[in-house]
């Protein structure tokens, strides 16, 4: 029975049967003169960076026909030299996880369940709400006490007081930066993230 592991995985559709496929992988070389097939044959490689702690360990993804075949440490990254902790070593299980929502989801006020919505719908609802909240919570000026003279004075505030933004230490620099820019452009200085915690 000459089936590749991946092929067998698809055929069987069962995890425990996939195990058997693995066994067959070794079985492909019963005789010493037979070569041991490598499942990475024919894959292209792409590097990435681990999503977890701040080590910045390099990942190496083996890809065939746009599908992730295997993920392990990038031996050419001088930080981890191919090694990975268990969290990073498990990352191929995120690529096709059934737990990942497939579309934007909406939960109505008082609702008890999620409904799938389109991106256009989601963006429209969000943008309109942000505009609405800006309109009704805009703070144009503050009254402050001048540090030197002790006098009260009215100064520009220019704030969307009702909008808060929590960013992330788990997204890329470009995204973090754009979020920072976005928050301040729409008028909210209330922009924080989990760096404190």
């Amino acid at each position, binding site marked *: 029975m000459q089936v590749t592991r991946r092929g067998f995985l698809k055929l069987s559709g069962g995890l425990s049967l996939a195990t058997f496929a693995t066994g067959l992988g*070794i079985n492909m070389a019963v005789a010493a003169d037979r070569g041991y097939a490598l499942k990475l044959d024919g894959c292209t490689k792409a590097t990435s960076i681990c999503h977890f702690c701040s080590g910045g360990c390099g990942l190496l993804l083996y890809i065939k026909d746009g599908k992730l075949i295997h993920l392990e440490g990038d031996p050419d990254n001088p930080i981890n030299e191919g*090694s990975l902790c268990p969290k990073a070593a498990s990352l191929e299980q995120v690529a096709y996880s059934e737990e990942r929502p497939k579309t934007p989801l909406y939960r109505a006020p008082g609702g008890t369940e999620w409904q799938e919505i389109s991106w256009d719908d989601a963006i429209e609802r969000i943008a309109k709400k942000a505009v609405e909240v800006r309109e009704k919570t805009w703070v144009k000026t503050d009254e402050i006490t001048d540090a030197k003279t002790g006098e009260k004075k009215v100064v520009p505030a220019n704030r969307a007081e009702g909008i808060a933004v929590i960013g992330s230490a788990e997204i890329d620099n470009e995204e973090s930066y754009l979020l920072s820019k976005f928050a301040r452009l729409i008028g909210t200085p209330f922009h924080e993230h989990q760096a404190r915690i």
Partner: protein
Amino acid sequence: MATPKMVFVDTSLCTGCRACSVACKAWNELPPEKTQLITSFQTQKDYTYDTWTYISFHEKYENGKMDWFMFKHQCYHCEDPSCMKACPSEAIYKTDSGYTLIDHEKCIGCGYCATNCPWGVPMVNPQLQKSFKCTGCIDRVENGMEPACVATCQPGALSFGEKADMQKLAKERLAEVKKTYPKAQLYGDNIMGGTTYLYLLLDEPKVYGVPAKPATPISLTLWKDLVHPLGGIAVGAAALAITGGVLANFARGNYRKKAEDNDDINAGQ
């Protein structure tokens, strides 16, 4: 011809992170199993047909000094494996590089390998009627890659290379750690004909829950070397009866943890 390889397991550097176990599953496409905390940080209880390597944790507190030992379990790939001796269908074979492998076309899932291994490594998948265990990542090794567990190990507890180099490294490390752990010793070099996974332990094997002197039972040796050569599987019922006796004795010898414990783990999937 491939030269003999070796994996050196330096338990003094193992942090018990279990990346080896995950990397093994990732490379070999093994499914996760349902687990729970057993004792200390241990969650994988034993070998199963879907768990080929796991870490056990051993806490020792003496005279105000705490030690927390971690031990990576996988097939030892013995030079003289009892599983191979016990296999009635000649499915188990050795490679030039030192690995002990199961040919699943020949494997009939009888489980004799499992019960005759002094560490109880191979496990039969009852659904598939085949026996499974660590392959040493033979497919990676034969293609110039390190085994998945070795490649992923961050604290440097696992090293892979030519057998002679690894033996030298092991001796150097032993000399070093003996300064602080007088009971430190190598494990694997003089058992079962020498193992392809060689360990540096900081304490006696029993502290890690492994047998100090694992051996092939004499009755199995008798059967394999005297009876079995006469006719392989065809020897039939008589030989199998002897084997059965061997197995029974072996189970009482307590080389294995209770079989039903394993069933619990597998049943939990």
